[in-house]
């Protein structure tokens, strides 16, 4: 069976654009408009849960020490 790009028309392009737009919207919301946006912390952690996933799942629950480091970096009075 051959895969015919033509028959799909511009749907793949549209899907791609929608994905990019919704991702951009999500990231912007989390970084700028979220009520939590004004609090300090690593920007990557503010954008995605994968940051926490890396420390808690892949590194076996080490996020709490990472949080301690964040307090040293961002959380001083």
């Amino acid at each position, binding site marked *: 069976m051959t895969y015919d790009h033509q028959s799909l028309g511009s749907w793949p392009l549209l899907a791609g654009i929608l994905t990019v737009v919704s991702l951009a919207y999500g990231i912007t919301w989390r970084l700028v408009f979220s009520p939590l946006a004004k609090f300090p912390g690593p920007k990557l952690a503010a954008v995605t849960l994968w940051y926490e996933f890396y420390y808690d799942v892949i590194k076996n629950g080490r996020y709490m020490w990472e*949080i301690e480091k964040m307090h040293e970096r961002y959380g001083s009075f």
Partner: protein
Amino acid sequence: MRDNCPDRFPPGPIVRINPYELHINDPDYYDEIYAGGGKKRNKYDLFVRLFGMDDGTLSTLDHDLHRVRRSALNPFFSKVNVRKLEPIIQRRAQKVLSLMENLENTGKPLNIFYLFSAFTSDVIMEYAFGQSHNYLEREDLNEDIYHMMNSVHHLGAAARQFGWLFPILLSIPEWIITRVDKGMATFAAMQNVSFK
């Protein structure tokens, strides 16, 4: 901490640790977050879903509904009832000691993890279900179930990230899961007895 009331916090040792949560390094906030008497605090869905039982009392998000469900358990934690538990604990503790004493001077190793896990399982099961499976009486102290519970706890962090993880795992038929994991087989057997 949910993102519903950040305005009330003065600036200070607060960092944002993920898209939805702040971490507050200040013991004075305890009373604000874990507010008692009269103040309402709903549970946090991202936190409770790691238990894999959305309808359980422990996982009930709504403050008032949780109160109703939790109050059914109150008698179990009354002083009188906990005191009644003491002979059960004493009996098992004696068993634990005698198991240790029997191994004295034999040179045989004893895995304390299995021993204490069997000890607490026996006590809790007798209290909660009225009968225990007496893991302490078994030669292997039912170490399979210890390993199974251990891996479930390790899964908790992943389950927090992926809400669909536990629903999928729980939907695996019993006859498959008991073949994959010996601990799960023991667990399923226990579950079937409890439901009878």
